[in-house]
């Protein structure tokens, strides 16, 4: 990744034959560096040069896809150690575990329901891991088929016995499950199975050194769709190993660890388990397999994943416009705020807890908060007036009153003049809205 044109040029034939369509080899190299051309266009490049260029231009961590269609989960292709340096790209896949020794059908049904609506976003657990605890190939296959019939989510098949894996994999190979796992005892057979079905494979070592050795062997057998697991299960060691994977892949381009990483929780208490999983989500796991499956347990973990994987450079905005809270009628109060998502959702939450049906007018401030937008003239009498007109507020309420955030009380005069609406100065902080609403609007807007 990030080779310069000159670095690429060194590997080209330097004959300026124009067969690639570029006037010179150097021009072709420049086009390659900026991603505007593909190396395939050059018929004369040597295989050695091709390999050198391919591997040098590959991302430090490979992108591996599990599952198919709308339910596929993309793992890896991360480039950072710290999110503040750029961002993290592919959110950790959260896989809920089902054992083939429990009531598979009931649990699978419950899992498909593990989705959440929060602050206008939709969170889901992306994967289901089915583990063979029975030691019975028939039973495992049946469990896998049952789960596959109940959910479209991406699957992880967990058994280290290739004989047991074979039947189950055969049954759901078209779903492109993650085969888990190849170890030093079974890697030849497991690799053959996964490679044969074109499915991604977890390579599990007994420690970080053993893992590197094993990855080299599996790659040697011709399979490259891999997910790595050092085999460590103690929180502290897993944290260290995941950190090493990420650092060595990103900083040293250590190819053997240039794959997404998998972590498995061990805690039996669901609260402790969520916290353990949270550590792995924070520090570099691309898939976490866990047992906890209640909504109140997964919502915090999925929220953390969502927060961590946001782009730090980008303010998160909601779409500007008029939002209903409850079922507001013609006399419902109207609150004005910005379209910075944190601000908007906090306001919305407070308005909701006032239990007075209302409307929230989110003004387009480019996703920045009230005071910043005010300072920037993006939250002004003009922009608010424009927003009032644009959403047709006049036709929706019979009063002409707006609640303005207390922090920008100074806008009251100009806004009243500009818009013709009466401005009520609300609390400075959103936390005051509930009380404010109860004090002022218990009987609607008069």
């Amino acid at each position, binding site marked *: 990744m990030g080779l310069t044109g000159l670095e690429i040029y060194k590997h080209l034939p330097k004959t300026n034959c124009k067969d690639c369509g570029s006037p010179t080899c150097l021009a072709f190299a420049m086009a390659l560096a900026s991603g505007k051309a593909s190396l395939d266009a050059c018929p004369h490049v040597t295989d050695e040069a091709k390999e050198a260029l391919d591997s040098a231009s590959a991302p430090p961590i490979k992108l591996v896809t599990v599952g198919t269609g709308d339910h596929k989960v993309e793992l890896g292709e991360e480039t950072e150690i710290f999110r503040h340096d750029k961002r993290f790209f592919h959110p950790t896949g959260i896989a809920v575990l089902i054992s083939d020794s429990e009531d598979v059908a009931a649990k699978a049904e419950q899992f498909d329901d593990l989705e959440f609506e929060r602050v206008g976003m939709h969170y889901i657990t992306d994967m289901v891991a089915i583990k063979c605890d029975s030691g019975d190939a028939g039973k495992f296959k049946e469990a896998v088929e049952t789960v596959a019939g109940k959910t479209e989510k991406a699957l992880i098949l967990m058994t280290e016995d290739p004989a047991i894996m074979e039947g189950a994999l055969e049954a759901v190979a078209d779903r492109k499950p993650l085969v888990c796992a190849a170890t030093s005892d079974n890697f030849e057979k497991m690799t053959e199975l996964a490679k044969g079905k074109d499915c991604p494979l977890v390579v599990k070592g007994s420690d970080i*050194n053993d893992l590197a050795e094993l990855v080299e062997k599996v790659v040697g057998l011709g399979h490259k769709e891999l997910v790595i697991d050092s085999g460590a299960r103690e*929180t*502290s060691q897993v944290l260290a190993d995941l950190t090493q994977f990420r650092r060595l892949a990103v900083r040293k381009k250590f190819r053997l660890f240039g794959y997404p990483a998998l972590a498995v929780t061990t805690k039996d208490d669901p609260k402790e388990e969520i916290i353990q999983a949270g*550590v792995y989500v924070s520090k570099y796991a691309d898939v976490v397999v866990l047992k906890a499956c209640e909504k109140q347990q997964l919502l915090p973990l999925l929220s*953390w994943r969502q927060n961590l994987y946001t782009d730090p450079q980008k303010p998160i905005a909601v779409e500007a416009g008029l939002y209903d809270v409850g079922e507001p009628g013609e006399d419902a109060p109207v609150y004005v705020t910005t379209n910075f998502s944190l601000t908007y959702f906090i306001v919305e939450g407070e308005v909701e807890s006032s239990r007075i049906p209302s409307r929230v007018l989110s003004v387009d401030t480019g996703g920045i908060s009230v005071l910043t937008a005010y300072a920037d003239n993006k939250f002004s009498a003009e922009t608010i007036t424009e927003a009032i007109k644009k959403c047709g507020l006049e036709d929706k309420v019979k009063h002409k009153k707006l609640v303005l955030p207390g922090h920008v009380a100074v806008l009251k005069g100009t806004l009243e003049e500009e818009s013709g609406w009466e401005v009520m100065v609300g609390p400075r902080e959103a936390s005051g809205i509930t009380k404010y609403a109860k004090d002022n609007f218990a009987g609607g807007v008069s």
Partner: protein
Amino acid sequence: MAVEILKEKYRSKVGEVVLGATKEDGGTRSHTITVGGESALPYLHFEGEIPNRPVVALEVWDIVPEWNPCFEQYYGDVYNDPGAWAKKCVEEYGADLIQVRLKGADPDLKDHSPEDCAATVKKVLEAVSVPVMVIGCGKADKDNTIYNPIAEAAAGENLVMGVGELENYKAVTSACMANNHVVIAQSPIDINICKQLNILIAEMSPAMSTRIIIDPTVAALGYGIEYSYSIMERARNGALQGDKMLAMPMYGNAGFESWRQKEANISADEQPGWGEQEERGILWEATTAMAYLQSGIDILVMRHPEALKAIKGNIDDLMKNNSY
């Protein structure tokens, strides 16, 4: 195959700060707590020292708080008695230290006098033998009148007192300076203000530069936690790379922030899609705290005893050596 482990070499480390004082040092605590001292990123024992485990406080208020009803069963019998409340936190729930929040000083609430506030702190100090932190009601004008009486009444105890902010740090800093307490320097999720405030406090008294705890402001899960997380990661990286004015232990009110949010409080009847309320609230708080442990926090202030328990378990796990 022996993998060549990548260890960062840092030039510096986080300063250590001692909380509380025993009899020998003029206090009445049974023991002191040392925080900070890290010479590696959080829990990467393979590349440096994490000499002191992070500590976990529970909060005690001087008025009956309007908390979620689920707290009634834990604190309902002691809500009216800060001393008994603190004792329960330490003896039953395993808090490493206590944070007294003098909410009742708020002129819009009980408007407790500075003397009342000092008396509350004394009561807590008598009830428990662990180090104690004290923060005001959050209204600067009033808080500035209570710092001195408290600092004097607890002279020698080596309290942690706060909060000092960029616009208002002198009163609390001078109260701490004169009576040898530790000051909490709070900045609004902004690394430049964080650093500037530490410089200003150190300028007031060079001796205070080793008696500062950074409060970078810890937003709750779902409400800006990623901003705080990244600010803390940057501050800790700065400290390890030799920036002395970022090299103080960090502190955060994970409980207070988390339990302000709808996700912790709303009942399952009202929001059936989110599951059972109390466990959700506990995990909203504990997940918030978990993230801050991963970004380098040294002192966590929690609220729910179950969240404290889960997070202490996580700290036990994280403190295990992972050297290669």
